[in-house]
């Protein structure tokens, strides 16, 4: 897994062609399963790509679709949500609520022109440190191939669109 420097040059989001660009992924991990699994990956000294920033929530059911859209708007190239496996939610069914929102959100993202692969939902139990490593590495590579998320409409195009409407 490449472990290139992330961040010190990453102010530039000039495009996939740029060597300096590194995927930026925001993750929302539930406290009981996925966050604990990420801790386990740490205590097991597993090595994975340094591109993910984890925000802890108590339950994947807490993940408001606005969090995801806000992350994209602020420059995330990908968003990863981690929750307990179906049937295992610490709060009984929060992960199902998360799944429904996730499916709707992917449709909205499509409408917005954001590739579906940029949002990923994974069930990772507290014992699956290895899965944390694999998912983060895999997603980092997927986002790397997709390139940065161009969220700003170029000025001329915007003007044309406004004129057309």
């Amino acid at each position, binding site marked *: 897994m490449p*472990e*290139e*420097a*992330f*961040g*010190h040059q*990453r*102010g530039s989001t000039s495009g996939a062609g740029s060597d300096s660009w590194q995927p*930026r992924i*925001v993750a929302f991990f539930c*406290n*009981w*399963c996925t*966050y*604990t699994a*990420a*801790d386990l*990956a*740490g*205590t097991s*000294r*597993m*090595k*994975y790509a*340094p591109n993910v*920033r*984890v*925000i*802890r*929530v*108590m*339950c994947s*059911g*807490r*993940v*408001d*679709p*606005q*969090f995801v859209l*806000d*992350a994209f708007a*602020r*420059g*995330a190239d990908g968003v990863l949500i981690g929750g307990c496996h179906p*049937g*295992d939610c*610490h*709060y*009984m*069914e*929060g992960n199902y*609520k998360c799944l429904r*929102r996730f499916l709707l959100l992917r449709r909205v993202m499509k409408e917005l022109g954001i590739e579906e692969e940029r949002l990923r939902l994974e069930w990772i*139990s*507290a*014992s*699956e440190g290895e899965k944390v*490593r694999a998912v983060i590495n895999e997603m980092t590579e997927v986002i790397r191939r997709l390139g940065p998320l161009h969220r700003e409409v170029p000025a001329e195009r915007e003007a044309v669109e406004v004129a057309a409407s």
Partner: protein
Amino acid sequence: MSMRDVSPNGTPRIGVYICHCGTNIAGTVDVHALREYAARLPHVVVARDYKYMCSDPGQALIREDIRAHNLTRIVVASCSPLLHEHTFRKATAEGGLNPFYFQMVNIREHASWVHEDKEAATEKAKDLIRAAVFRVTLHRPLERRQVPIHPDVLVVGGGIAGIHAALTLANAGKHVYLVEREPTIGGHMAKFDKTFPTLDCAACILTPKMTAVKAHPNITLWTYSEVVRVDGYVGNYKVTVKRKPRYVKEDVCVGCLECIEACVYKDARFPDEFNLGLGKRKPIYIPFPQATPQVVLIDPETCIEFKSGRCKKTCVEACGERRAIDFNQKEEIKEIQVGTIILATGFKTFDPRRIPYYGYGVYPNVYTALEVERLVNSAGPTGGEVVLRNGRKPESVAIIHCVGSRDENTNRYCSRVCCMYAIKLAHLIKERTGAEVYNFYIDIRAPGKAFEEFYNRVQEEGVHFIRGKVADIYPSGAEGDQLVVQVEDTLLGKVRKIPVDMVVLAVGLEPQPDAEEVRRMFNISCSSEGFFLERHPKLAPVNTFTDGIFLAGACQGPKDIPDTVAQAGAAAAEALALIDAGYVELEPNTAYVVEEACSGCKTCIPLCPYNAISFLEEKKKATINEVLCKGCGACVAACPSASIKQNLFEDEMIFAEIEGVLAHA
């Protein structure tokens, strides 16, 4: 609220502390760069790095800085909040601030330990610290909720772990419900003959404890019973227990066993579960002589009365005036209230049929170790005689170690007890039969007290130890009743073929087949092998991630009797600590409705799995019962008017974190 919650001009004053954790963090993350970086973040007044923030001097730094610099918010970048959040919240409180004016940043498990590139790890740590600084400015002072602890305890599983935990609690004056699924308590230990390495008889040390359980005024013993439902939370669990019918009234039966004698079946002819099918029982039976409670039971699968309704019922006749036998007994459902729960549900042994070349179930003279435990037991089906199924005494015996353990194809883990019980069985078989005994092992693991000495002793007794993994077992001899064990002796460096009369498979320990369902019912986690997961492998080995639920014994992982008993005592002590405190403080991360903003749409109400949200008809607003709310935040995410807030996880705080991790420095 402390005066210092906000500084005089209303802006927060933040202290940021970067922990080196020795070299655990500082070895991979540039902690000095982090400190310099943190010092430049908005509202940060003090930024320090220190060798061990969790140490007393580390915590003192926080306390002193709060006073000296009028700090109003604290950020510590160190390990996982699951490990030390409470430590630093406490230090924050001791400095005079509300403990929730604190945010922790995980730069060890989530950065220094998982990345090799120092620069990348440092950049990631900066992002995470920035997010925490942005977030902590929005924190509010909170109070922990106190909930009372019901003093009664449920212990699930009546093996040595459950027995020891129940007795410890009962002796401390607490009322215990001990629920066991089998008709008797005793578990696996009751099946063993001698215990390693002292060779004291398992029954002699176990049965007094079993009797003590039955006789204890503080223990309600429910055997042949299963927990079917668990509701509630720490301090206030509501548990539903199903009591299966024994068709014998437990409070009337005196255990005279005359009914068994009188059964229309003159001879026992059905495979007896306790002896793993090596012995026989009648339809009315008691699992073993010291079974506790001393109450017989009827197996409706084999009883003629149940099958045809036309039995002479000689058992009822024998019972006479006592009238303990009741063919119409029905399943009973009991509901109990307890404050804490100890799970001691034990293990199952590995099924060696999964390794076909060992021939278990194909060659009659291949046994599991547990079967041999019953053969060497004087109360067992052969009265303690080690004989083959044809009645012949074996002259040579092979014991194969690591069956279903330390193997990529079955279980990767070491089952911990097999080496020692295999050595014990080698000793007992040699003692009883004088046979040549060969142990085939990969490594001998004898790390317990007096274990190595016992191993040496058995070697000196003339038991053979051959280092190598058995590759095949096949029949030979004129009648094909001999078995040849083929192994590569890795010390001699050649393949050996050793003919024996009997093969004993030292099977490993596995989670109970229904561990997954039990785990779900009690809302706890399993490790990857399927054993119940402890809260912390070193510092909270009997706790689970669910408060008030503790683990004891092999349900948490393979362990021997001394370790099981020690863990059961620890689990009982954890439960006692909660009970005697009388209450528990819960995290304040509950949700609440901002009434002015609530439109009364009722979207949130069906979302709550705990029915904590109700609708105030007169006001047309939703309201959340704080006692029932467990703080998942599902309703917060769903509220279309953003009128539900979750303490510690407010939308604004999470948006601040998103902004923080993504903001350019």
